[in-house]
């Protein structure tokens, strides 16, 4: 089981490392969408929104790969994955396979590292909050 967890972490880290680096350096070209999806993607790219997403992906990927602050890395990547899924569900359905794969990896890691996230759902959060 240790190696499954390690493998999942490395795989998700590598996927986001590659796409995060590509978002900043553009060393391989992604197939471009058409129509509204292309217009939207163009606006996101020219206004540097994609660069911000790439930086978040890169930081999350490095945390997963290095193995320090793994829950923080998962926290950073979770909203990115939600947005990737929304993009594929609403704007451009092609090429959703990788998004589904990343979602499965992320959900598995969230389950495995659940001890770090459980306090977020604690029924009485005020009791856990340090008093000033």
């Amino acid at each position: 089981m240790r190696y499954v967890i390690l493998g999942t972490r490395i795989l998700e880290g590598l996927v986001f490392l590659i796409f995060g680096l590509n978002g900043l350096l553009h060393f391989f070209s992604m197939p471009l969408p058409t129509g509204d999806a292309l217009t939207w993607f163009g606006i996101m790219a020219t206004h540097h929104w994609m660069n911000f997403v790439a930086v978040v992906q890169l930081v999350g990927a490095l945390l997963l790969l290095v193995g320090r602050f793994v829950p923080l890395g998962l926290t950073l990547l979770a909203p990115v994955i939600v947005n990737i899924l929304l993009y594929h569900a609403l704007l451009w359905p092609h090429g959703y396979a990788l998004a589904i794969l990343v979602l499965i990896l992320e959900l598995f890691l969230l389950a495995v590292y659940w001890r770090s996230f459980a306090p977020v759902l604690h029924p009485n959060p005020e009791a856990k909050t340090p008093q000033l």
Partner: protein
Amino acid sequence: MKVLAIVCRILLGLVFVFFGGMGLFMHPNLPPRGTALGDFVNIFNQVGWSQAVAAFQVIGGLLVLFGGTVPFGLCILCPITVNILLFHILFHALAPSMIVAPIVVTILEIVLLYAYRGSFAGVWTTKATPTL
């Protein structure tokens, strides 16, 4: 700090329930297509992305208003706040007067994240051990 947290909670919750409800149930008055901003918001509305965000805003706002689920509500609202802030920073030149509300929301969010930091301590652990 306790009173401050309650005030921030009510403000943040009401703002997001209000704007989320508006996004869900009212027909927005959008700028015409042709500019980057107009294209962006129109596409966003057409495919239903803004309705998805609005639904998450209502859910997050309600969770922040209810005492027992504040950290989970903050988890949902945090990426939304980042995206709202990013939108207004990157498109600042196109709508310069709109930046105030996102900054206020961000400050409320940061105060609450700090007030409930006990619940998020698990996310910041350096070496989290996975369990299964």
